[in-house]
């Protein structure tokens, strides 16, 4: 199966010469449609840099990124927003909802960016909220939603545009265990049903049970053989067994 997103020999450096800082060194990674990949690593290891490069927000110093079969690293700057719009859905740690908009409008704005007319966009947005079990909260402002509900709205917003890849940055970090589980259930179900590739950066061991594959980043490199071989207590406490007990490393 062709990768939904592919990273080949990607390097990212800041500065030049002896003062150069290498955030990523020759990283290669493929994520298939429907696959859930979890990226772990300490702070400053390069996870966010890699996520930004995969999200076509940041250009690598060298290497190639391919999204939905299209090589994007050589595209001119003006075409990159279009790639993000069509192929990437983002889920953020802090939800990043627009506080002035209702839940439905928060979802619809992803379609507004594509130029979709408001009535059609609102219809699709409500359907997306139904899909995350928030149909009754369509008119609610974010301030009136719980953390878990906000993240589900964010997931609906990420999915409403039919992206190829979902990039999730610490999606459960701000949630209690019950909300975190609900969000992970949802993300997993939708990824499987809709064949979205999901790349998730997390420090939250409780999410590991949902991963098809876990990669560990340290000092800008993908490291092999250092992933946990047993699932932590918190994961078991959610009552989920890992989808693939044998961890895959690049």
């Amino acid at each position, binding site marked *: 199966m062709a990768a939904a997103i592919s990273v080949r020999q990607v390097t990212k450096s800041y500065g030049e010469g002896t003062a150069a800082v290498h955030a990523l060194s020759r990283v290669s990674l493929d994520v298939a449609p429907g696959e859930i990949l979890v990226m772990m690593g300490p702070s400053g290891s390069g996870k*966010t840099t890699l*996520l*930004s490069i995969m*999200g076509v*927000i*940041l250009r690598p110093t060298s290497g190639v990124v391919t999204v939905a079969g299209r090589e994007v690293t050589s595209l001119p700057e*003006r075409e990159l*927003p*279009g*790639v*993000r*719009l*069509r192929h*990437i859905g*983002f889920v*953020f*740690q*802090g939800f*990043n909802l*627009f*506080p*002035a*908009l209702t839940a439905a*409008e928060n979802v*619809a*704005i*992803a379609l*507004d*960016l594509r130029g979709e007319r*408001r009535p059609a966009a609102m219809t699709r947005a409500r359907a997306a909220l139904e899909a995350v079990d928030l149909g009754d909260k369509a008119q609610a402002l974010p301030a009136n939603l719980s953390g878990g509900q906000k993240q589900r709205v964010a997931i609906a917003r990420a999915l409403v545009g039919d992206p190829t890849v979902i990039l999730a*940055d610490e999606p459960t970090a701000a949630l209690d265990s019950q909300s975190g589980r609900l969000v992970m259930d949802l993300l997993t179900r939708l990824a499987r049903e809709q064949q979205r590739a999901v790349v998730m950066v997390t420090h939250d061991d409780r999410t590991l049970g949902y991963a098809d594959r876990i990669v560990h980043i340290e000092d800008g490199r993908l490291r092999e053989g250092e992933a946990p071989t047993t699932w932590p207590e918190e994961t078991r406490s959610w009552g989920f067994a890992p989808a693939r007990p044998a961890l895959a490393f690049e």
Partner: protein
Amino acid sequence: MLAFRNLLHDRVRFAVTLVGIVFSVVLSAVQLGLFLGFTRATVDVIDQSNADLWVMSRGVTHLESGVPFSESLRHLALGVDGVADAQAHIVTFGTWERPDGAREGVMVVGTERDGAMGQPWNLIEGSVDDLDRPDAVIIDELYKEKLGVTQPGETVELRGHRARVVGFTRGIRTFTTAPAVFTSLANARDYAGIRADQALYLLVKAEPGADHARLAEALRHRLPDVDVMTTVEWSATQRNYWMFGTGAGVSVLIAAALGLIVGVVVVAQTIYAATVDHIREYGTLKAMGATNAYLYRVIVQQSAISGVLGYAVAIVIAAAVAHGSQSGTTAILLPWTLAAALFVLTVGMCVSASVVSINKVTWLDPAMVFKA
């Protein structure tokens, strides 16, 4: 959608923005209205004269500074082809002695009683024909208190000569503090100390269809020792003298410009503060794939909405102030052309105030969304 909701979401800031715009627009509207009011006051006597051309002594710079010349020039003027009528006319400062003995400066306007030019207008009490009566004068109702009279029939003195108020006009203001006092040419000569064979101006009426500029040229040729201007030229000369030559108009225009600058600063500051407050949202939009043009549109829409709403409130206030000024000696004029120009100016001002915010989001790094 986002622009309007963002504005309404932060109502305090929106209110501050609107107050700033309203203050700015009202200030500008009132100052520009004052400018128009002053301008009209300076030229009303000229524009309402019903004359097509004015003849005056050489070098006269403004209406109130006329220098006497021989009235015999009137006959020479009447001999020029295209001239239908020519009347002697006097406009000059005089001293009005109120019944209580106090003195006020006035502008004496003397007109030939058998002519059709230079007469008072907008009469609300009495008639122009009443000026045929001995010592008769007509003043504007706005200056009753200043001139110490309350009703027709009251008498005062002008330069030691008796004057009887026979009527009142409405809305004839002067730019100087000296109210217009309309009277016959003979009375005006007495009140201003001008010889009986002299005039300060000749008012000329052209034959129907005559070219005023050509007629002015012909009069200059026939009357080489005086100046001849069309009414339009003389009106512009008078207006420019008082509005720009004295600096009075410039100061009013500067105040109007300051009002607009205050508006730009207030709107720019509040829109910028709102942009900074929502910077993470703009970053999120950029990460999601929004182009800079989309973000600019959101910011400009916020500014434009603020401008339109602020203008709507401000113009109502300005109209009320302008209406209220009609009963005073200083008129604030707010014609629809000024209101329309202010609308364009206000929205333009608000949109231009977005530039700083637009610059902010232009260089916004969407990767910020991954920072906690």
